[in-house]
């Protein structure tokens, strides 16, 4: 019987600083053949083991077309993440998954895809963005709205430069608080959406960010004319098992880890969930 609690051993290949307290880790399975069955979809997450410290869920930043390396971008906030930040290339960790439903990218084809990310919500948004850009002809358009706390908090800064240069997607970045070097938009993400006149015409939005961001983004989208089924959000919760058994992420009759983390807002409304 396949055991969903049994992690695959993975080796850290590369670690990059992404901003204050944030690092990206590229992992390769020690047994390379694992990737074929693993193949994470954009919007899914994994349970990462630091043996001796435990496990924690992290969104997959890797795009659907990027094979072989699993990228996670991890903020140091507590015990496991601290341990992880002290590790080096060559060190071994455990990975199980991928879990969750992922973004409904297939259904977004032919539409204006609007990705909205904030703070530590960027890894799954990156995954959706690069996956969509790799098939950009299939979408009417692709745009990213990204809000960071300050210029130094911008995740994937180098890549963002490339995305802007590539013209495959319209990239909009804002910072809550600017500095002398920042030429771009200043203000929280909701002001960016309004200032750029994000349009609901033939569009679907996909949002991932901290609960407080989602709380403010939804009414802004509604005000801009988006209907509830055009608002797709990825929710976070404290998780342990990742497979709908431990009960922790229970939301109504569903489990965020199993039935989500991606939900459409109209579905959440029918469940009576307020965000």
């Amino acid at each position: 019987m396949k055991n969903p609690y049994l992690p695959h051993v993975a080796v850290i290949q590369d670690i990059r600083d992404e901003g204050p307290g944030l690092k990206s880790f590229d992992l390769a399975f020690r047994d390379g053949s694992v990737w074929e069955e693993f193949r994470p979809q954009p919007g899914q997450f994994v349970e990462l083991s630091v043996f001796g410290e435990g496990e924690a869920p992290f969104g997959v930043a890797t795009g659907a077309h990027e094979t072989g390396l699993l990228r996670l971008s991890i903020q140091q906030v507590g015990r496991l993440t601290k341990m992880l930040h002290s590790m080096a290339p060559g060190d071994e960790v455990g990975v199980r998954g991928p879990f969750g439903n992922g973004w409904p990218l297939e259904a977004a084809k032919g539409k204006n895809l609007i990705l909205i990310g904030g703070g530590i919500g960027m890894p799954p948004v990156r995954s959706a963005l690069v996956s969509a850009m790799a098939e950009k002809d299939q979408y009417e358009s692709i745009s990213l709205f990204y809000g960071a706390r300050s210029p130094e908090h911008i995740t994937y800064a180098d890549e963002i430069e490339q995305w802007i240069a590539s013209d495959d997607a319209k990239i909009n970045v804002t910072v809550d608080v600017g500095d002398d070097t920042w030429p771009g938009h200043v203000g929280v993400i909701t002001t960016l959406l309004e200032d750029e006149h994000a349009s609901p015409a033939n569009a679907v939005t996909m949002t991932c960010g901290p609960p407080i961001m989602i709380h403010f983004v939804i009414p802004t989208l509604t005000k801009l004319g988006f209907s509830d089924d055009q608002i797709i959000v990825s929710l976070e919760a404290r998780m342990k098992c990742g497979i709908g058994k431990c009960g922790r992420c229970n939301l109504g009759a569903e489990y965020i880890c199993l039935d989500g983390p991606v939900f459409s807002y109209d579905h959440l409304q029918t469940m009576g969930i307020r965000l």
Partner: protein
Amino acid sequence: MDRLKILKSRLPDWLGKLRAQAAVYAPVERAGVTCFARLAPGDEPQLDYGNTDTPLKEVLFPQTECLITWQRTPEGLQVQEVDTSEPTVIFGARPCDVTGLRFLDRAFRLGGIEDPYWVRRRDKTTVISLVCPHPVPGCFGPSAGVNETSPEGADVVLTDIGSAYVVEVKSEQGQAAVDLASDAFTSAAEEDLIAAREAGETLLAELAEQAIDLEEPEARAKAFLQSPAWEQVWNRCLSCGICAFLCPTCHCFDICDQSCRGGGERIRCYDTCSSKIYTKQAGGHNARPTAKERLTQRVMHKFSYGPERLGVLGCVGCGRCRRCPVDIDLQLELSRVEVKEPV
């Protein structure tokens, strides 16, 4: 099928045969607590008990269990799964606890991903249930839909008729358990069957006096959470989790690591939605910050979310959660609310 009976004096023979084939778990008293424990040779089960203090689920979903182990070796990390499942017989379980297994069975199997630790144990387990001779005080099994004389999920059901038990075999697995000691069983006579039926009828009549109204569970739960009584209830809750740990259907757990020289174990242990830190996330956000949200989760999971997802009520009426240190009796409170007709 022909009904059988077994004299109480022949029970040790049967248990001996079962123990030769399987790990037999039966009610015993350990340090003043009745619980299901594995019988060692010579151990006598305690069958004149009300209900065990701790729930039957412990046999198949232990309070703590090791999921995987790891070792650091020169070739790198070696990770191994642990499988301690073995042929098992549960002997003498009360109908409510047996019915509780049904909720857990669905929780651990459904949803697309199975929990291998539960499934492996459950699939190797034969359940022999023992009908209560008299109601356990505080039990309201029939109000929670429990079949008190022939519970769903049991392979064999025993009904006490004095010097013997009348035996109902409910499955092939149950038949196999009986066949192991076929000479210990005799055909039940007409008067034995009448005695068993009367025992059941008496039990149900006595239980009717302890019945509470849990009809329309979902509407009832919602009405309760809007009622004035609700404020009094959640304000008292200590968030201690006793109600969850004692409940035969609660299945929340935590997973954590224990290291020892060069390796370690990953353990899962019971957890509870009552716990203050259960849903506390990194960064400090807590989806259920007070006892109000946490106890709402308990009420709704048992009476609305669980039934919606798994098709069965999350309460089997065992009454164990009435051991709440501040006397919160959720089911009694629920039974008292007026459920308005939907308009």
